[in-house]
């Protein structure tokens, strides 16, 4: 019998509270479904989360920055703390960015965190996208999420560019000048587009204000909406998983959302936050005070866009000077890489899931991922795209590379042009061959067993290596071939239990090491019945 005291029973408090909430909002049924939702666990599924978490960091730091930033292009003479610019005429936007960097407590750290988080956001989007592509996670039913992901990259691209332009320093002004040139290169409508965005001739006095509202409201709003749909679809369609024991196309094997998955995600958010803070504290980024206020006559060498725009910059640098004249009109060479190239490479991949399905005639639903090696064609095409992107990005920084590695800039440009055509083809070939080779090796191990490293000499003098079959053997002692299950085939003796499962350094699991993984469909070899393999000499 409960002893009644004057004060409320603390142990019962959460229960009564939750009961009260449920009676009022009927939350327990949907919440139970949510908290019990199962997520498959693999390190590569965490890459997209880096993007999500850096977006949260961007929102937090961005709010801080808006408290001090003044998006005005009215001229002022700088009288702040930084002596090397004192007395210089500059826009209010640049002056307030300097104030934010030098006089606001923690302001520079916040600015650097914001910029590093932006770079990390885009980098993790790309890395996440590569994981999705190479494992075939975009296949039916997840095509829409692939398209949304691409759109997120595009929006991030715009967010990055507008943010890069806001401080109104020499580098951002140069970037804006290039953007206006790109707009002007569009036939017929170019001049109107540029004039309407800049409010007249470049640079005008409106652009910072307009970019500001795009950067702090419109684009983040769009990003937030798309991210919600992106995650909502992952919830609705459930996460893909790797094939493996017990894992089928119709189930999800993993951890419940609460408590383990949520705790891990919380920890991972802290890790992302810590990494961004570490970068911001250790590495200087975008030292705007060195660029000076924007003046059209001052363009520094090594004026580059941030890395995710650099591929376009590279394509522009590599484009030969082919000016096309049509009557009285001309089509500048800038149009092809900057408008056609950028437009094509950021939107055409959206159609990929349907293109692939059409080519293979595969209309089934795929919830199981494919190991990259099992689809050499896809890996080849992906490698082509990645090589193209990387090579164009490298060409975007070709002046820095030429200078630091003592290569002629002209040689860099020609290597860029030739490489852009030759290297993707080469990458396709190599990737396909590597995939086929890996497939071949998997099949070989499944058919013949694992190499033991033990050499046996036969009576006729011949030497053979003893193989440990992965499955049962027939009456002659030859292994019965095993079907490939789409997952890792053990290829070393310690992976099939010849040694205790290796526990390696930093990554060692909290719990007892699980049984050695084996090919799906085959139960693990139990310790007692295992026969020792010897060289035959007793």
């Amino acid at each position, binding site marked *: 019998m409960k002893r009644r005291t004057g004060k409320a029973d603390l142990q019962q408090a959460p229960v009564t509270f939750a009961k009260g909430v449920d009676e009022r909002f009927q939350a327990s049924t949907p919440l139970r479904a949510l908290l019990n939702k199962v997520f498959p666990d693999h*390190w590569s599924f965490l890459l997209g989360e880096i993007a999500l978490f850096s977006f949260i960091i961007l929102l937090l730091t961005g709010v801080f920055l808006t408290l001090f930033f003044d998006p005005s292009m009215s001229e002022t003479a700088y009288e702040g703390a930084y*002596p090397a610019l004192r007395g210089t005429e500059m826009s209010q936007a640049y002056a307030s960015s300097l104030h934010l960097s030098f006089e606001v407590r923690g302001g520079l750290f916040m600015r650097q965190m914001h910029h590093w988080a932006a770079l990390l956001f885009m980098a993790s989007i790309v890395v996440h996208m590569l994981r999705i592509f190479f494992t075939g996670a975009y296949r039916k039913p997840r095509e829409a999420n692939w398209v949304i992901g691409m759109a997120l990259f595009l929006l991030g691209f715009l967010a990055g560019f507008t943010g890069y332009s806001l401080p109104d320093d020499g580098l951002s002004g140069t970037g804006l000048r290039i953007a206006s040139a790109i707009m002007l290169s569009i036939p017929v409508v170019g001049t109107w587009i540029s004039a309407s965005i800049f409010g007249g001739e470049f640079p005008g006095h409106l652009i910072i204000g307009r970019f500001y509202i795009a950067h702090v409201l419109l684009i983040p709003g769009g990003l937030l909406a798309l991210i919600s749909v992106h995650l909502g679809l992952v919830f609705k369609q459930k996460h893909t998983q790797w094939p493996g024991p017990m894992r089928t196309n119709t189930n999800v094997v993993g951890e419940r959302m609460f408590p383990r998955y949520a705790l*891990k995600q919380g920890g991972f958010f802290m890790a992302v936050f810590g*990494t961004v803070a570490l970068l911001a504290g250790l590495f*200087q980024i975008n030292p705007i005070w060195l660029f000076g206020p924007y003046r059209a006559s001052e363009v*520094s*060498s090594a004026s580059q866009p941030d890395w995710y725009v650099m591929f376009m910059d590279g394509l522009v640098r590599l484009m030969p000077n082919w000016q096309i004249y049509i009557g009285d009109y001309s089509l500048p060479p800038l149009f092809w890489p900057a408008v056609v190239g950028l437009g094509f490479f950021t939107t055409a991949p959206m159609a990929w899931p349907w293109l692939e399905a059409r080519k293979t005639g595969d209309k089934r639903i795929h919830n199981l991922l494919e190991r990259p090696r099992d689809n050499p064609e896809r890996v080849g095409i992906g490698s082509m795209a990645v090589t193209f992107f990387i090579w164009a990005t490298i060409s975007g920084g070709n002046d820095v590379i030429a200078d630091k590695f003592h290569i002629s800039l002209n040689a860099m440009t020609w290597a860029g042009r030739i490489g852009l055509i030759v290297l993707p083809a080469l990458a396709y070939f190599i990737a396909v061959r590597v995939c086929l080779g890996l497939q071949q090796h998997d099949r070989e191990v499944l058919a013949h067993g694992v190499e033991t490293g033990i050499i046996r000499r036969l009576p006729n003098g011949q030497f053979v290596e003893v193989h440990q079959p992965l499955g049962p053997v027939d009456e002659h002692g030859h292994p019965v071939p095993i079907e490939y299950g789409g997952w890792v085939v053990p290829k070393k003796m310690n992976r099939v239990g010849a040694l205790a499962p290796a526990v390696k350094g930093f990554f060692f699991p909290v719990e007892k090491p699980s049984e050695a993984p084996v090919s799906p469909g085959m139960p693990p070899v139990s310790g007692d019945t295992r026969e020792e393999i010897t060289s035959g000499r007793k």
Partner: protein
Amino acid sequence: MTSDTPARRRLRVFSRRRGAPSRARRRIGAAVRMLAALALAGGVYTAFAPGAFADEPKQLSATALEGKQLYDNSCITCHGRDGQGVEDRGPSLIGVGSAAVEFQVGTGRMPMVRQEAQAEQKKPVFDKNQTKQLGQYIQELGGGPQLPSGELVENLDENPEAIARGGELFRVNCTSCHGFGGGGGALSSGKFAPALHDATPEEIYAAMLSGPQNMPVFGDNQLTPEEKREIITYITLQLQEDKDPGGLFNLGRYGPSTEGVAIFLVGITLLVFTSLWIAGKS
């Protein structure tokens, strides 16, 4: 006529009216006039025209003589005798001045290792004293710009605006090649603008005066000596002696390209390992 006295007869030598002179006399007269004209022309020429070896008699100072010795050992192959230059090998040094020598030799760019797009900076072959001697020799040989004596860096206590003005001038005149952070940059065909991280005030001043390698000359009518000092103030007190606001590493200040490398090498790498670690805990 009664005036045919011997005295008048002497005068007659110059008189043309007095009947036709004999043939012999005409010839002698012509020869004498010819000689006189030649002597006059020769004399005027000798008096006003510079001699072929005008500088030869001028004595080189003792320092310059030492310099000449070094020059004749190490420089003459490409720059020729008396700094006249050798075609396709080395330019003439007449008129480059000691500023050029002190920059090129003092930073180790000269003597060059080989003919290439641009001489590389390396460990100087000659010490400070020898460089001075070489500079003196070239200066006395053909004149040219010289480093001014006195302080080349403005005193910020007396002239606090110098650093901001220098920054402005630096951005207008220098960043298009040397970069906003003075990290250097590429030019065409293997040429480059070097980094300014270890450039001394003297070197910067001499470079602006003499326009070494592919750098244009910033003469005193383009950038006054005061403006040059302000630029040097900005480079040495702001860019080199940087307080590095914003981190332990400035990533070389090559702009967004190194930042892009850093986000993958540091950010993505760290986080991929973190995700391996977190996913391993199950």
